[in-house]
């Protein structure tokens, strides 16, 4: 089970992984639209009042492209035999945790909680917040961190198998590539 959730890339062939990745992406678009989530960055997720299927899908595509291109360039630098499909599949599959997080906004639950907290700020009631809302936001924050770690583990395992990378230096390059992809995706999404 842990192989399936954390590192399916050693066992399953590229066709199976690609089909799974595409299915997960389609699921992500549907979940994002249903639960009013915007994926406005490679490692970003925000809940909004309303969104469209086209917006969610374009965001997901841009996030995937930014991450894949950067990791592919890094992969080729580490190992010239790195294949594009072996980078694309982990990027597609690793995004599953973000898509699952959208379920927490069922019935606009999380959106309403955050709106409630923000609403109190201009009224100078920052010293008397609704602790219920605060606790829920904090809990969701902790769960989000856990899912973010899950995303990084899946992505790194896929990258490691695709490139046969070894050494601390490449871990650092991998982390930097995620940060650059986040910046690049945000810039592209603002421009579009």
């Amino acid at each position, binding site marked *: 089970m842990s192989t399936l959730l954390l590192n399916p890339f050693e066992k399953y062939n*590229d066709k199976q*992984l690609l089909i799974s990745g595409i299915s997960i992406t389609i699921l992500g678009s549907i979940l994002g639209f249903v639960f009013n989530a915007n994926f406005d960055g490679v490692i970003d997720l925000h809940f909004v009042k309303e969104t469209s299927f086209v917006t969610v899908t374009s965001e997901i595509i841009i996030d995937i492209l930014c991450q894949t291109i950067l990791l592919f360039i890094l992969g080729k630098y580490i190992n010239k*035999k790195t294949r594009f499909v072996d980078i694309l599949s982990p990027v597609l599959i690793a995004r599953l945790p973000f898509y699952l997080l959208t379920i927490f906004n069922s019935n606009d639950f999380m959106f309403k909680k955050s709106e409630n907290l923000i609403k109190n700020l201009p009224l100078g009631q920052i010293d008397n917040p609704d602790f219920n809302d605060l606790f829920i936001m904090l809990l969701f924050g902790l769960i989000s961190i856990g899912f973010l770690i899950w995303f990084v583990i899946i992505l790194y395992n896929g990258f490691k198998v695709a490139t*046969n990378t070894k050494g601390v230096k490449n871990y650092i390059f991998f982390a930097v590539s995620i940060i650059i992809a986040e910046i690049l995706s945000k810039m592209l999404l603002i421009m579009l």
Partner: protein
Amino acid sequence: MLPIQCPSCQNALLVTQLSCTNCTTSVSGNYILPIFLQISKEEQNFILQFLLTSGSLKEMAAQMGNSYPTVRNKLDDIIQKITTLQSKL
């Protein structure tokens, strides 16, 4: 299974005697093990499989139940190991 490392100090083992089971002639000397025998049994089996599949990593991956990049990485690691062993000769 042919041991390749000293169980006492982990140094590489040499062949010092070969015998004929037919006429009991023995030949003594210091013979370095061929490179193929200096890698682990798992790696030797991998190379055999590589030959038997005519060098098709895709076919090997299907037979071993592993992904193509996993098998390719294993091959690259063995190539690296053999290159290191060759440089020591």
